[in-house]
């Protein structure tokens, strides 16, 4: 699509945006990206994005945290320096398990939460001091921006987007 152009269509309302995105995709335009000031429910579905796998990652991080917690509590409290827990000096991990459950739980949550955030940042290529990618600043306030590619037929695209409720339509030359 070297003859294609990039269009910036700005919307005012998330419900209008949802409907618009649905129609844009139905009419065979390619949506590059949508910028919104807040997460819009269902937007990923109408955009046709593949479902997130972060929950699977989170589950595995949780399992990792649980394993680490079992290993360190066992090492610290049973193997390295056996402790008399609650006046029950059995020195067996299983018999003292109730004392460790809060730690196991906290470590599971800690690993799942932190590693999930880090994974999310890595996956969406975010890091501190990164320059913002959103083309117009208003998408951090109250505007919704759809960036789409269009074949070289600007007037038709314009009326089409107007009908969908876009408040601002800007054509840009394709950067690539």
């Amino acid at each position, binding site marked *: 699509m070297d003859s294609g152009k990039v269009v910036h269509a700005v919307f005012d309302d998330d419900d209008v945006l949802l409907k618009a995105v649905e129609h844009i995709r139905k009419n065979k335009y390619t949506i590059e990206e949508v910028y919104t000031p807040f997460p819009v*429910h*269902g937007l990923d579905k109408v955009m046709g994005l593949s479902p997130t796998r972060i*929950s699977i990652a989170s*589950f595995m991080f949780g399992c990792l945290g649980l394993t680490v917690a079992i290993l360190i509590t066992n090492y610290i409290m049973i193997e390295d320096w056996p402790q008399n827990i*609650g*006046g*029950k*000096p*059995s020195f*067996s991990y299983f*018999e003292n398990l*109730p*004392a460790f*459950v*809060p730690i196991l739980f906290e470590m599971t949550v800690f690993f799942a939460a932190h590693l999930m955030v880090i994974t999310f940042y890595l996956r969406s290529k975010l890091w501190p001091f990164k320059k913002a990618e959103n083309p117009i600043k208003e998408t951090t306030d109250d505007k919704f921006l759809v960036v789409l590619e269009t074949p070289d037929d600007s007037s038709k695209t314009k009326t089409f987007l107007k009908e969908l409720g876009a408040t601002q339509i800007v054509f840009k030359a394709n950067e690539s």
Partner: protein
Amino acid sequence: MEYHFSKFLKRGSIICILIGAVAIAYGFWNMPKTVEQAQERAAATHHGHHGHGSSSDDSHHGSHDDQTHSDQDNEQHEHIEHSVVESLDNQKTNHHQSASDKKSHDNHGKHLLHQFQNKPWAAVYVAALFFFFIALGTLAFYAVQRASQAGWPIVLYRVMESISAYVIPGGIIVFIILLFSVFGANHMFVWMDPKVVEHDVIIQNKTWYLNINGFILRALVILLGWGLYRTFVRKFSLKQDQDVYLAMNYHRKNFRLSAGFLVFYILSVSVMSWDWLMSIDPHWFSTLFGWYVFASMFVSGITVIAIMTIYLKSRGYLEFVNNSHIHDLAKFMFGISIFWTYLWFSQYMLIWYSNIPEEVTYFISRFEDYQLPFLSLLILNFLFPVLVLMNTDFKRINYIVVVTGIVIVIGHYLDVFNMVMPGTVGDQWSLGFVEIGAFAFFLGLFILIVFRSLEKAPLLAKKDPFTEESKRFHY
């Protein structure tokens, strides 16, 4: 659309009631009448003779021989072991080593007879309480939705209202069973026996609260409060549909009524749990027991709402319920299951850690005599629902929600079983003919009452201010 009680379901529930009634009657008829019969029965069961003195110590060591205890630890266990027998035998004064073997033996036989005589009563009590708790948990859930003015569950209001219809007959049945206990028809609540209190200092110190008059009075006030709330909230809910102009009025009325009810409920549910469940083991106490019982009934109630909604949908009713509603109910099942486990563990860990004989006996008797029902709770009520319902997509698949729901319901039946049985029948428990029969009896009664009530009103609360929002609810 109005619901029509299907013939199949109606017949099924009546058959359940009949079979259950026969099983319960058999249980009472089959009850041993004399000490000798009880001893014969005990010798025949596979649980074995869990007696006093040396035999008890043997069985204790036998079950733990792979573990190494210090001497001190063993001593403590023995002490606890004795105090279990003690509190149940009501022979605090005679139980020391100096007591003659003959006398101790007689008392043990009498105690065994009481346990066997309690068995059918306890089976009926567990099932009656369990189904009452389902209705009460649903009523609490319904009140939460009313008081928070939630938008999503309006389409489920009629289902919740009809499940909570069982609160009144169920409450009356439980109250009648308690009256039988009060008048000495069984020995489920040992503190009701003045001969026991005479020899028991711990119970004597509690008699300012734990006495028969107070017990009956509290039960009456509590049941009346719950029954009145259910009656009025249902009345207003139905009136709301008939009068367009007063719909908002009734909405506000129900909001206020529900907020008031929740305050009453959260206090009274604790009192109820102390009276009806915790006092079965009168020496034992736990400060978060009320919350624990509440969590159990809340999750059973929500689960039954989900199962019933999916059933009605599969029969072509409730066309306005979409899978986002099911998703929300499944989220509640998931969340409250974790909440239940949190309370279960909090209660267990504190008692395990502090190791006070009065408290720890409760768990020792469960670990030694009730291993299977007690430990399977954690699998049925925690591991299974958490692992299955963790996935977002699974919460929307009807058959997964139903299967998990059935597991949760069985798990919480066992939870009530574990709260009642050890203090009433001791190690002579079984999940046999009578227990299952009692479950079937109350299941049939529950279905009959709930679906009868469902028949009486349209399935959609049309005039609620949030009805449209609820119909369009989409996640």
